[in-house]
């Protein structure tokens, strides 16, 4: 295990250090101290590292992550794991707005609550939230799974494409073109796998599934007057 002190070397110092580790290195486990809410910590990591960040982080932590397992031992600011490609970003506390925005792959676990626009424009990531998510979550979500163990705020899944949304609690209301869908065996199995990976002890049967009605995919000539 190696320690990096953000107060001493700054965000650029930390990130440069992480980029310079060769892919075949045995120096895999890195602990970052004194994050002080700074932005873009462990952003753009491209290798199978284990990174523990000991405190609250600012915006875009773990953004563009590839392969690394990043654990935030605190709360995360706006856009945690934004555009993640693979690997894991695990938030022990809560996450601010736009968690997992546009992320292509990997797993984002938020043990607490996530704020508004969680999973906005997600493109294949799996997101598991232990608590609730705020308004406009999964807005324009394209692919991947968003699992919410608590409640979902207003306009869940507005203008959603092919992402799957699972909510255990109450969805205040659904956004445009988002509907409740039948929970089939394949969905229960997928959900069980995701809950297991996120170490959440809920029964898949307790969740409801939401997805796209696919009514916005094509122009509807009956609505021409509205334009």
């Amino acid at each position: 295990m190696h320690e990096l002190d953000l107060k001493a070397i700054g965000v650029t110092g930390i990130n440069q250090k992480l980029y310079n580790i060769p892919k075949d290195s045995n120096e895999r486990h890195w602990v970052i101290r004194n994050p002080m809410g700074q932005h873009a910590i462990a952003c753009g990591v491209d290798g199978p590292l284990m990174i523990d960040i000991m405190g609250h982080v600012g915006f875009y932590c773990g953004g563009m992550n590839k392969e690394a397992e990043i654990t935030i031992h605190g709360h995360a600011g706006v856009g945690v794991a934004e555009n993640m490609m693979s690997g894991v970003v695990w938030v022990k506390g809560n996450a601010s707005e736009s968690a997992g925005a546009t992320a292509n792959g990997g797993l984002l676990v938020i043990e607490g609550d996530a704020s508004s626009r969680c999973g906005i424009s997600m493109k294949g990531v799996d997101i598991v939230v232990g608590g609730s998510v705020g308004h406009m979550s999964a807005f324009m979500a394209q692919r991947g799974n968003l699992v919410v163990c608590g409640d979902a705020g207003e306009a869940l899944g507005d203008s959603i494409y092919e992402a799957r949304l699972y909510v255990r609690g109450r969805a205040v209301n659904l956004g445009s073109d988002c509907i409740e869908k039948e929970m089939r065996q394949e969905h229960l199995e997928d959900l069980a796998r995701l809950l297991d990976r996120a170490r959440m002890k809920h029964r898949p049967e307790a969740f409801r599934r939401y997805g796209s009605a696919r009514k916005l995919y094509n122009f509807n000539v009956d609505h021409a007057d509205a334009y």
Partner: protein
Amino acid sequence: MCGIVGLYLKNPRLQPQLGAMFKPMLIEMTARGPDSAGVAVYRNPVKDNEVKFSLAHDDKAFNWRHVEGALEEALNCEAAIHQTGTHCILVTDGKEEDVVKWLKANAPGVRVVGSGHTVEIFKETGLPEKVYDRFNLGSATGTHIIGHTRMATESAVTTAGSHPFATGADLCLVHNGSLSNHNRLRENLKREGMEFQTENDSEVAAAYMTWKLRGGATLKQALEDGLKDLDGFYTFLVGTADGFAVVRDPIACKHAVMAETDDWVAMATEWRAIAHLPGADTARIWEPEPATIYTWGGNA
């Protein structure tokens, strides 16, 4: 893009450190607003029969002593002036309206930045750290303080266009965001007798609050009405005589975070501003909900 910060001390023993605790919070928000900065500090309350004015003049060499003497003579009142840079704190037992009227007629370059019993407002163009130091705020003692770092998007970078904006006795507002209906609203408010110093959208929000409060609304009612009448995106932090209030627009895309310990309550655009406070690591931390009014320390 702008940064807003507020600190309210629950533990009176910390009051001598208010300015020192707040300094790194404001400076941390420099990246969000390097154009100008402003602070409203609540300290040294004056007697019930007195009013405290925060005044400013663009000319640093302006003769404030002359204003002091002439005002005393004209209104037959006591007046004491304390100058710090381009600003000056005037304490007087003259009637507030008479003082404002007299200043307008006899000291045309003087701007009334704020007034009340406790508030003192200082704001200027320049890097937040420089502005803070220019007004000796690092050594400020007080109960609470709010601040703003500005990156202008809607109007010119001027001292008059920087925040906080006064909204009434001991009340002032800082704003992160931009309003889209401020031109129409400004015209409507002008018809109601409100006056404007700038083309700034936040000044319109402040004037709107002032107008509502003059009409008898409580601060909470004024903010609730604002949610209906102010179009755009915003997080507002409003300093009051004994605390502060926070409100975000219903979409809440302008960031805001709050934290509380046994010793203090803090609000900031970004967590990194609050991270400097003692005990921040173990504070209770949350994001203010959209269209919800939060108040501290006062009867809003």
